[in-house]
C-alpha cells in the first residue's frame, strides 16, 4: 500500500491495474511510485508491490536519472496525455541493471488536489530484435542501400552508405535523398523521382546515362543504382541499391586500352604476314627460277657430254656459273631485306653530308668505271637523329641504281644528290639522267624482285624494296618521277625520330 498517499487513488485503480494486459504504474507528484501491476513488476524483475513508495527514477537508466526529476516536474506543471521521449530510444531499467527497450505512454490523472500520472509501458524488445536483424541483413548486403519515402526523404540506410558517402547515419535520416548527388542533377532528380512513384517498377536507374553520386566532401564518383519499389503502410517507399563503379569503370577503360593495343599488334602482325606471304611468293618465282634453269641446263650438259660436244658443255657450265652467282646475290639481298625489318642499331645523331660522303666513297669504283659525274647539293641541315644505317642504305641503293641504269646513248651519267629541310622533315633527292623507269603502277616499283624494264639491265630487284622498307621504318615517304631524260627519287623522312 502506498505510504503517504490518499488510499483513494490506489483503490480507484487497483482492480483496473490487475486487469490491464500490459505493464502500468501510477506515479505521484513527488515522483514516488503509488501503484504497479504484476505485469510491470515481472517485466522489471521486482516482487509484487516492491516498487511502491520508491522514486520512479529507479526505473530510469542511469544516464537519464539526474535530469529526469526536472522533466517530471515540467510534466506536472502542464500535464497532457502523450508519448514520452518522442524520437528517442527509451529504456526501462531492470532490477538487475539490464536496460529494456520500451515505449512509454503518459496520462495525467487527478485525485482531489493531487496530480498523478498513469504510465503505461510497452516492451519492444522483440521489435528491436527484428529491427536489428533487418539491419544486420542490410549491412551484410554488398552494396549501399538507401530507403527513400514518397517525399524523397531518406528513412533508412545501411552501413555501406557511410563508407561510400562519408555521412553518419544521423546526418542522412529525414534528409532529401538529393543531398547524395551532384548539385547539377538535383532538380531533375526530383522530377524523375515523382514520375517513378506514379509507375513504380523494379529497374535500374538512369538507363543509358552515366550516373554520378556526391560524397560529403563534395567529391563525385560514378554509380549504378537499382530501384525496388516497396509498398509500405505509410505509402510508397523505394529501396535504392547503389554500387560504386569507379573501379569497374577503370577496369573497363583498361580493357579498352588493352584491346586497342591488341588491335594495333594484330594489324602489325597482319602486315608482317602479308609481307611474309609476298616474300614466299617471290621466293617461289625469283629464287626458284634460276634453279630450274640450272637444272635444265645441267640435264642438257649431260646429254652433250654423251655426244662428246665438249664446247657446248663448257658454255652451258659457264651459264650455270653465272646463274649461281646471280642467285647467291639474290639470296644475300633477301637476307639483307629480312634483317632490315628490325635493325638493332641504336639511333644516333649524324650529319647527312657525312653519310653522303661515305656512300660515294663506297661506290667510288662503280662511279669511276662509268665515268659518272656526281654533284652534291646538300644544304646546311641540323643533325639528323635516327638509325644511321637506314639512311646509309637508302642513299647507297638509290645512288647505285642511278649509276647502274645509265643511258648508253648519253654522253656520260650525271647524278645529282640534293637535300634540304622541309618543316620537320629532311627532303632528299637523287636524280639521274639514266634510262628512266617506264610508266608503272608506282607501288609496283618498290616490290621485291620487281625488275622494271630492260631485260639486259642489271639488278636483283631488291634495292628499291630495301629502300622502301627503310623509309617506312623511318616513318617517311619515297616517290619518284621518271622520263626518258632520267629519274628522280624523292625521300622525305622526319629529321628526328619521334619518341
Amino acid at each position, binding site marked *: 500500500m502506498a505510504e503517504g498517499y490518499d488510499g483513494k487513488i490506489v483503490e480507484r485503480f487497483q482492480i483496473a491495474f490487475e486487469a490491464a494486459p500490459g505493464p502500468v504504474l501510477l506515479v505521484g507528484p513527488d515522483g514516488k511510485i503509488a501503484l504497479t501491476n504484476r505485469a510491470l513488476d515481472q517485466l522489471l524483475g521486482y516482487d509484487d508491490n516492491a516498487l511502491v513508495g520508491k522514486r520512479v527514477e529507479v526505473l530510469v537508466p542511469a544516464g537519464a536519472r539526474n535530469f529526469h526529476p526536472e522533466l517530471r516536474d515540467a510534466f506536472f506543471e502542464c500535464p497532457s496525455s502523450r508519448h514520452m521521449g518522442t524520437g528517442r530510444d527509451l529504456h526501462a531499467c531492470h532490477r538487475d541493471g539490464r536496460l529494456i527497450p520500451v515505449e512509454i505512454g503518459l496520462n495525467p490523472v487527478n485525485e482531489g488536489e493531487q496530480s498523478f500520472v498513469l504510465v503505461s509501458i510497452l516492451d519492444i524488445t522483440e521489435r528491436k530484435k527484428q529491427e536489428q536483424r533487418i539491419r544486420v541483413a542490410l549491412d551484410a548486403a554488398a552494396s549501399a542501400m538507401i530507403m527513400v519515402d514518397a517525399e524523397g526523404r531518406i528513412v533508412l540506410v545501411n552501413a555501406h552508405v557511410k563508407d561510400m558517402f562519408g555521412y553518419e547515419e544521423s546526418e542522412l535520416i529525414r534528409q532529401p535523398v538529393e543531398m547524395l548527388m551532384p548539385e547539377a542533377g538535383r532538380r531533375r532528380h526530383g522530377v524523375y523521382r515523382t514520375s517513378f512513384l506514379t509507375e513504380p517498377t523494379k529497374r535500374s536507374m538512369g538507363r543509358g546515362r552515366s550516373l554520378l553520386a556526391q560524397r560529403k566532401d563534395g567529391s563525385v564518383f560514378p554509380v549504378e543504382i537499382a530501384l525496388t519499389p516497396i509498398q509500405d503502410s505509410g505509402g510508397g517507399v523505394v529501396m535504392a541499391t547503389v554500387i560504386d563503379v569507379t573501379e569497374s569503370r577503370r577496369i573497363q577503360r583498361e580493357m579498352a586500352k588493352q584491346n586497342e593495343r591488341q588491335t594495333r599488334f594484330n594489324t602489325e602482325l597482319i602486315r608482317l604476314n602479308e609481307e611474309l606471304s609476298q616474300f614466299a611468293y617471290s621466293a617461289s618465282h625469283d629464287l626458284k627460277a634460276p634453279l*630450274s*634453269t640450272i637444272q635444265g641446263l645441267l640435264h642438257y650438259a649431260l646429254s652433250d657430254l654423251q655426244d662428246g660436244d665438249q664446247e657446248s658443255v663448257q658454255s652451258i657450265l659457264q651459264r650455270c656459273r653465272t*646463274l649461281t652467282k646471280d642467285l647467291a646475290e639474290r639470296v644475300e639481298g633477301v637476307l639483307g631485306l629480312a634483317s632490315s625489318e628490325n635493325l638493332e642499331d641504336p639511333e644516333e645523331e649524324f650529319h647527312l653530308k657525312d653519310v653522303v660522303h661515305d656512300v660515294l666513297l663506297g661506290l667510288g669504283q662503280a662511279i669511276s668505271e662509268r665515268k659518272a659525274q656526281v654533284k652534291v647539293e646538300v644544304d646546311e641541315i641540323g643533325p639528323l637523329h635516327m638509325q644511321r644505317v637506314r639512311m646509309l642504305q637508302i642513299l647507297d641503293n638509290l645512288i647505285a641504281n642511278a649509276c647502274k641504269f645509265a643511258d648508253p646513248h648519253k654522253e656520260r651519267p650525271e647524278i645529282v644528290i640534293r637535300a634540304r629541310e622541309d618543316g620537320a622533315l629532311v627532303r632528299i633527292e637523287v636524280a639521274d639522267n639514266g634510262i628512266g623507269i617506264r610508266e608503272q603502277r608506282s607501288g609496283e616499283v618498290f616490290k621485291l624482285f620487281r625488275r622494271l*624494264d630492260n*631485260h639486259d639491265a642489271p639488278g636483283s630487284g631488291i634495292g628499291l624494296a630495301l629502300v622502301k622498307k627503310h623509309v617506312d621504318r623511318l616513318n617517311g615517304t619515297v616517290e619518284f618521277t621518271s622520263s626518258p631524260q632520267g629519274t628522280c627519287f624523292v625521300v622525305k623522312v622526319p629529321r628526328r625520330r619521334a619518341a
Partner: protein
Amino acid sequence: MDPRIILIDDSEDDRYLFKGVVRSAGMERDILEFPDGEPAWEFFRDPESFERDAGPHPPASLVFLDINMPRMGGFDLLERLQEHADRLRSRTFFVVMFTSSRNTLDQERALAYDIVRDYVVKPLDTEQLGAIIARHYQDDRTGTEG
C-alpha cells in the same frame, strides 16, 4: 598441219632449253619467241601485219607463257587477252603456263582463265612436251575452240 608453238619467256637460257626439248621431241619447226608479254600482245592484237610474209597460217597456236617477266608479265597478258577475247576469237590458240613456280595460288589463278589449259613447271622435258601436245591437239574440241 601441226600447231605452231609460241614461247613467251624473259629468260634466254630457258628459251634455249625449251627449243632443245622441242627439237629432241622431233618437232623441227620455227618457234615464235617473245621476251615478255608486251611484244607478244602486239602480235596477238594484229597477227596479220606481224607475219604478212609468212606462209599459210597454222590452224592453231600453242602458247607457252612464263608468269614472272619484266614489263608485261604472264598474268597481265592473260588479262589483256581475256579483255579482247571477242576480237581474238578468229584465232585458235590456247595457253600453257610455263613457270618455275609451284605456287597453288598461281595455278588456281591461271587455270581460272578460259584460254589457259595447262600449267607446267620448269624445266620441261620431252615426254612432258609430247604429252601436252597429245592432250590438246589430238583432241577434236581443240579444232573448234579458240
